[in-house]
């Protein structure tokens, strides 16, 4: 069959041509242009697929990433903070034989580094016997003196270790950095796998790519084992610094995957040297902490003086052997390039073996000979801080002026032990999908080893990171690089032993496990989202009063607006003295700022910011859709006010109509997509409580200081309370205060009435934990029941009675008391369930 090609296809073909960059090892192709053995099937499959099809699949992959909410936070980005994870559609392939070498080398290196940690926090033979210069240890800010002498369970400091590997032009693999503290990437690697297996299913199966899930299951078991000597059913938690951390997605992903609670430092407390999780049901003992918090942020009592992120007293709990940490406190000590040059010797000394994989050539300047070499060969080297300190970047003497080089040498001479020099690492390239077709990009492969109880198991895969531009040797997720899935091919004789599914004892978590902090945030999320809605409804009901058009179709008059806004306390003190024109302008400005000015306190934008503030730490509890809707709300409300006045009113009305719909979507997603656990009850309690409060406010504004003609105000409140239609269908007649009050106060069927809110509130309060244990009714429930009773027993006829001056004293009294009751319920709830305690440091200063 002859295939004729169109010009467009030929152009595609042209784009499709992959030309490896000269002078680098290319992972996929030999210099001759033929694919390497391991890449053959993939190369054939992709060529057959064509650029269009690959592009289409890539779109599917990107959608998957977005749906799964895979993100990476970028530090110092004021906007949005997180951005979608970048995954290249073409994986990196490593064949079985080569992988065997990597596997063996990484397991060896993990064993070696663990032995070094055990020695340096123990007998320090390596220092005393001069296998490692004392200055390397003493100058390392990661050497945490309070950890000295702490022996972790089974002597294992390093539970998860990661190494970044690079391949030089002769095809040799080198370790370019070690991650010993809380290595990130396992979760991203798994996510990459889920996407690549779905976008390239047939070739994935054909290649017999080794699966990753077994490694994660092994790791889950190893974490549970870590607490085995303390409890037959140890509780493991994943401790995160919080949603602002760059790899927060991974923290929540792994916690979710393993079924371990994700906690922040404030969720834990230490008593009697035992660690507990603060939950709604009380304190629950914690035996193992997988921490994603850096060493010095783990315990503000013994470590960092300026951070309160961690758990005070944690170090002492570890010292007492009551909690196991993975990785052990202090293991950040080896996250330094300074020791790299000593590893071959240390490996012989500690393991009696030759180091299987070399590190990138590294000279630690604290050594006189090394320093001389560095000064002589400065231009061929990269100078780095020996111990990673924030804000210190690699320096490239080759690109410096003679003066700059002199200055650098002076800095090195002043504190030589703080500098290392490394050979410029040559990174291999791999074909990467770019806008202009396939192009070579530099890659670094992060591989992982995990302690499995007997030795280190290496994950059969990795996280491959890709440079953004062809010429760059900088590969960093912080700097916007991408990633690739990493396919390890099975050897013909290899059979994958997949671990059995999780045993039944790791049953779904008890709902009372909900950390108190989370319950608190959900409560406020309910309150703020109701406040935003009330604000939007208020402004939308009042805006038409500014219009000169008679037939605007809405009813508020300017007088009504003044009455309501005045009663709600929005009007400036000098308002009554203003001229009519000024008053009009003032109202207009007020309503506009409530919509467009996020800095206006209790405006719509302001409350929306509060929603984001309380929702952000709950990120992993909401679906991606919920976040998208929240994002849409923010986008809608971040438009600026149109300049032209008449148009402004119309635009504002349209905007508010849209916002109401989006808000309903947000509320709907929150309600419909949450399991009916305690968290959901707290969200509902917040919502019901706030809606009751808003309703009392509006009742007060309408009837508090009633003018002769109540009709416009009543029409407005019905509209705000979304009850106009109900009113009309029920009463047909003209507006009467007793009917309006009946509908908004005591109508059990109206989802906007006070009775409805209080009944719902009481129902949710009854579902909260810890109540059955005490015979006494808890205070919030008691107060809510009393408030409900009061409202049900109130006579609407009495409420709507006017005295001689036309005032409604019964109603005023009723509303004032009810508001007080509602605040009391909120306070009682806070006192009972939420720990509002923040840590305060003390140390005498004189």
């Amino acid at each position, binding site marked *: 069959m002859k295939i004729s090609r169109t010009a467009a296809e030929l152009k595609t073909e042209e784009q499709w041509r992959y030309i490896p960059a000269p002078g680098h090892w290319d992972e996929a192709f030999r210099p001759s242009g033929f694919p390497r053995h391991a890449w053959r099937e993939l190369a054939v499959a992709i060529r057959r697929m064509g650029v269009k099809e690959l592009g289409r699949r890539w779109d599917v992959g990107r959608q998957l990433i977005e749906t799964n909410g895979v993100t990476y936070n970028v530090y110092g980005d004021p906007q949005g903070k997180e951005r979608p994870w970048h995954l290249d559609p073409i994986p990196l392939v490593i064949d079985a034989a080569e992988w065997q070498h990597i596997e063996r080398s990484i397991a060896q290196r993990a064993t070696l580094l663990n032995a070094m940690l055990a020695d340096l926090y123990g007998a320090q033979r390596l220092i005393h016997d001069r296998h490692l210069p004392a*200055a390397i240890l003493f100058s390392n800010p990661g050497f945490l003196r309070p950890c000295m002498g702490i022996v972790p369970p089974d002597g294992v400091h390093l539970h998860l270790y990661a190494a970044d590997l690079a391949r030089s032009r002769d095809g040799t693999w080198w370790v370019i950095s070690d991650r010993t503290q809380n290595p990130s990437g396992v979760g991203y690697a798994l996510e990459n796998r889920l996407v690549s297996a779905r976008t390239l299913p047939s070739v994935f199966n054909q290649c017999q790519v080794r699966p990753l899930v077994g490694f994660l299951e092994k790791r889950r078991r190893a974490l549970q084992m870590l607490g085995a000597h303390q409890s037959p059913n140890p509780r493991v938690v994943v401790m995160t610094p919080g949603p602002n951390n760059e790899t927060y997605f991974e923290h929540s992903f792994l916690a979710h995957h393993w079924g371990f609670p994700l906690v922040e430092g404030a969720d834990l407390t230490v008593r009697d040297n035992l660690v507990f999780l603060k939950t709604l049901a009380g304190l629950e003992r914690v035996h193992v902490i997988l921490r994603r918090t850096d060493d010095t942020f783990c315990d503000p009592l013994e470590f960092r003086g300026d951070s309160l992120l961690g758990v005070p007293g944690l170090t002492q709990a570890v010292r007492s052997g009551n909690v196991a940490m993975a990785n052990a406190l202090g293991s950040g000590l080896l996250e330094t390039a300074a020791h790299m040059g000593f590893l071959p010797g240390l490996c012989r000394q500690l393991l009696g073996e030759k180091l299987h994989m070399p590190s990138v050539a590294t000279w630690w300047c604290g050594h006189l000979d090394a320093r001389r070499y560095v000064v002589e060969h400065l231009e061929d080297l990269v100078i780095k801080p020996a111990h990673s300190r924030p804000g210190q970047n690699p320096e490239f003497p080759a690109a410096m002026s003679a003066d700059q080089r002199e200055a650098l040498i002076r800095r090195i001479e002043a504190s030589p032990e703080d500098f290392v020099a490394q050979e410029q690492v040559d990174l291999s390239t791999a074909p990467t999908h770019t806008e202009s077709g396939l192009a070579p990009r530099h890659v670094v492969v992060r591989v992982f080893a995990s302690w499995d109880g007997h030795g280190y198991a290496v994950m059969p895969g990795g996280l491959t990171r890709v440079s953004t531009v062809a010429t760059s040797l900088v590969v960093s997720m912080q700097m916007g690089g991408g990633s690739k899935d990493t396919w390890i091919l099975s050897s013909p004789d290899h059979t994958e032993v997949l671990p059995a599914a999780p045993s039944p004892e790791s049953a779904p978590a008890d709902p009372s496990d909900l950390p108190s902090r989370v319950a608190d945030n959900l409560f406020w999320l309910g309150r703020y989202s109701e406040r935003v809605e009330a604000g939007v409804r208020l402004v939308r009901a009042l805006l038409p009063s500014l219009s000169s058009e008679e037939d605007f179709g809405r009813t508020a008059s300017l007088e009504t607006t003044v009455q309501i806004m005045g009663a709600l306390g929005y009007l400036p003190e000098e308002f009554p003295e203003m001229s009519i024109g000024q008053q009009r302008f003032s109202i207009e400005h007020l309503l506009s700022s409530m919509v467009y000015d996020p800095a206006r306190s209790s405006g719509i934008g302001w409350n929306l910011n509060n929603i984001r503030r309380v929702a952000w730490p709950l990120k992993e509890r909401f679906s991606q859709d919920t976040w998208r809707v929240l994002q849409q709300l923010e986008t809608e409300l971040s438009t600026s006010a149109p300049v032209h006045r008449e148009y402004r009113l119309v635009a504002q009305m349209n905007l508010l109509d849209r916002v109401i719909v989006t808000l309903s979507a947000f509320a709907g997603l929150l309600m419909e997509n949450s399991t009916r656990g305690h968290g959901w009850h707290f969200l509902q309690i917040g919502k019901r409580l706030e809606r009751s409060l808003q309703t009392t406010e509006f009742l007060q504004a309408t009837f508090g200081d009633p003018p002769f003609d109540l009709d416009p105000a009543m029409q407005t409140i019905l509209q705000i309370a979304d009850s106009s239609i109900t009113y009309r269908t029920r009463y047909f007649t003209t507006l009467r205060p007793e009917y309006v009050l009946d509908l908004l106060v005591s109508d059990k069927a109206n989802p906007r009435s006070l009775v409805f809110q209080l009944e719902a509130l009481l129902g949710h309060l009854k579902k909260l934990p810890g109540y059955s244990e005490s015979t006494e009714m808890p205070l919030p429930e008691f107060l809510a029941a009393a408030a409900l009773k009061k409202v049900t027993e109130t006579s609407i006829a009495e409420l709507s009675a006017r005295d001689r001056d036309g005032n409604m004293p019964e109603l005023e009294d009723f509303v004032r008391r009810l508001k007080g009751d509602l605040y009391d319920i909120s306070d009682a709830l806070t006192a009972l369930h939420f720990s509002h305690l923040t840590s305060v440091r003390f140390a005498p200063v004189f």
Partner: protein
Amino acid sequence: MRYQVIHITTYRYDQPVAQCLSEVHLAPRSLPRQRVLETILEIVPQPAVMERRVDYYGNEIASFSIFKRHDRFTVTATSLIEVAATPPEISSRITWEETRAHLTLHPDEESLAAYEFAFDSPFVAASPELAAYGAASFRPGVPLVEAVIDLSHRIHADFSYKPKSTSIDIPLHEVLKLRRGVCQDFAHLMIGVLRSYHLAARYISGYLRSGAKILGAEASHAWVSVFIPGHGWLDLDPTNDVLPSEGHVTVAWGRDYGDVTPVKGISLGGAGQTVDVDVRVVPITGLPVPNNSASELLI
């Protein structure tokens, strides 16, 4: 000379505090020139847990937690101590350059242990500015003892003592610029200069016998110790420009204030706090000595 030292630290909170965890360095060390007869630690309200351990530097730490609601807590450490009137050993002629070379080689265990104190610590890091300030004292070929005594003279002369003028948050380079501070600033400053010359210096937390012209006696005091190969550690008090002897009671040492903070901790809740520190060092004469001090150590 025998002393009774009473060190009272009181924290008061605007609102009651639900719990508090604390770590204190209040038990004086036993040294060749200093005998500790007893130390009693009293905490009000009564802590739920109290433990003692020896820290990395050999100091005794007591750590405790209070879970009762409280709006103030008081730590009172009372010690009975005998300090010998040993004249400071200043006969060494080893130059500072030789000392630096000796530390780099650290041929014995003693100098290896001392070497650690030549490196930066959280509060005290070497810098070109500190080296420049020290240059007048560290002229080539000058014996170390001479250089450090001169440095102590100069700090005493150049800087003014201003109680409550600084807090521990003020970085060293600010102190160098402002030319004023309190004992811990001067100690940090001197250590910083020594470290800028790659010499080993440690921070001593302790007490001072009260006297008319003595600064820093009503609070806890701080001074410096410098390592002299072949002789050990020489104490210097730059705040008073003296070589500590009978009048200085050593409590603990470390790399800087952060290693040996007398009372530190974390409280949960309690927004506003005030602290009062009261230290009395009372010479005792003619009182009976407890005959077996070791068994009566209480803490």
